[in-house]
């Protein structure tokens, strides 16, 4: 079954210096449980594609759906609902809230889903255990190493048991050793928890983790699994 479908998806930014066609004619079907990697030169539209699929920016043409539910034209609220229920994010810059501790950051998605305080604590603690941060619960992000911060972000991405994780260069700010650790972990949750992962990356090492490898160029899909499309 497909978790994500797009049909000629396109996004044109309106900038005062002119229009930018960041992505165009993107038609893909992502099967549930796959590990998708998106590669391509800088400025090729990788982040734009990711954010569009996550409902964080609106496409300007085409359509996309999640589990066959059309999301192209739904209300903002519904997109937020979709994210808080089904989606986890891992960003290159970790995207942690700086004044919240490790556990508070991880509890945020649960709080949005109106989980009770007691349950929030339980779930967050156990997820943080799986990423090996059980003794950093009350640290602020700035009191953690980069690798630890990214693990907090992973814990936050996993905590609401999403069906989909979006990752934008999750290892871009980490040294190669740590990068492998994080990638292994992503692979593990992809396989064990059957969470679909869609990951943007520059690095060939990271790209190798995918079983669906999309290559973008100038906003268009150049190849899927090395098979040239255009």
């Amino acid at each position, binding site marked *: 079954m497909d978790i994500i479908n797009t049909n000629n998806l396109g996004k044109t930014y309106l900038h005062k210096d002119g229009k930018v066609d960041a992505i165009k004619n993107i038609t893909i079907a992502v099967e549930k449980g796959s590990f998708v990697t998106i590669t391509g030169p800088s400025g090729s539209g990788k982040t734009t594609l990711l954010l569009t699929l996550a409902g964080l920016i609106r496409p300007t043409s085409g359509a996309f759906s999640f589990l066959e539910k059309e999301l192209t034209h739904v209300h903002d609220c519904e997109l937020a609902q979709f*994210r*808080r229920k089904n989606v986890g994010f891992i960003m290159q810059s970790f995207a942690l809230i700086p004044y919240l501790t490790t556990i508070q950051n991880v509890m945020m998605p649960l709080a949005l889903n109106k989980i009770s305080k007691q349950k929030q604590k339980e779930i967050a603690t156990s997820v943080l255990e799986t990423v090996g941060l059980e003794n950093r619960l009350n640290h602020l992000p700035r009191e953690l190493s980069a690798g630890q911060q990214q693990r907090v972000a992973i814990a936050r991405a996993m905590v609401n048991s999403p069906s989909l994780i979006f990752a*934008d260069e999750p290892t871009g700010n980490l040294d190669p050793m740590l990068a492998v650790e994080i990638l292994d972990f992503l692979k593990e949750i992809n396989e064990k928890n059957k969470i679909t992962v869609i990951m943007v990356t520059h690095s060939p090492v990271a790209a190798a983790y995918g079983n669906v490898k999309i290559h973008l160029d100038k906003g268009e899909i150049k190849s899927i699994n090395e098979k040239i499309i255009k």
Partner: protein
Amino acid sequence: MNLFKLVWIELWNKKTQLISSLMAIVIGIGVIVGIRTINVYSEKAVAVKLDNLGANILVLPQATSIDDYSTSDIDAPTIPMEYVEKILTSEIKGVDNLSPKLTRRITIGNKKFVLTGIQPKNEIASKPLWQNTGFGKEIQASCAPSTAENKSHGYEDEKLKRKGVDSLDYTECLLGAQVAKALNLKVKDKLKIQDKELTVAKLLVETGTVDDDRIFVNLKAAQEILGIKDQISAIEIMGCCNAISDGLLSKLRNILPDTRITTIGQIVSTQIETNKTMKKTSVIFLIIILFVGSISIGNYMWANVNERRKEIGILRMIGTYKTEIYKILLVKASILGLIGGILGYSLGTIAAYYMGPAFAQIQVSAIPIFLLWSVLISIGISITGSLIPAYFAAKFDAFSNMQEE
């Protein structure tokens, strides 16, 4: 976690910025509360002054100033008693009531008081409000209220209550609240002033004026104690308003040429003027604070929004609704407003407490209802200042920023 806790943690983490952004509101509200507090007490003081004069015209010795009149020094000038007769036997109309008084500072033990000789019946009749320390109405009341009005203001009952004063005897005295406290005296106790022994007939309710330091005795007794026979320091007259506008003052001046005759209006007009100025000033300040405060808070919230576009982006990313973002910003603004209001009120009240005596010669204490107003105004300013930034914060496309890190 919940959204409220999120706001709380954030504010707590930004204490310093928060306080500096609140400065404008705190100072502004402080100034308004300070002025208004002094203002209210000053108005009260005017009203009480009027009350205690209980008359609207004063006949004073030529050389007296108004301040001398309320607390006369040993050598303060006097006028002869016969002036009272002069007025009474004249054909002048519109004089409702006459009340001659003799006032001097005296020392008992080593404490200073003011001894005032009064003619009880007259005194009472033209002195409607011992107990009332309210303000506003009395200013009009001093203008010879009609009997019906008197009744509606409850003056009659007051008079009944003060029956004892009606018959203030040659050997009796009334004590102001401070006097009673200082000398530790109760009703029926004996008080010796020089060689004269007096019985305390009544203790007066505290008024916050010089009356609290007064010992009232029969005019004759006062003249005897002070050794100023047949002399008085003032005649208080209750004149009808109509009569005053018909030139009552100049008629009185004609028969008493070597006196200074003045209306209460003239006496308190300076103070009323000051009060008016203070009121105006506080209105001006209110307008300034509305602008400056909103801008200052708006600036903070705006900086806050810009500084934390990323954080709002994160919140939106993990699925926070726009309405929840608005809520977060507005709750934040309300908390800021609440804190600003409380701090401003405290600042203003403390300032008024110390500055009241220095600038307006009045004692001031806190006016709790101003706390409510301070908080409401402050929250209003804070929310107003937050609305525009909040609108943009929830509206803008936070996610284009996510990638710029």
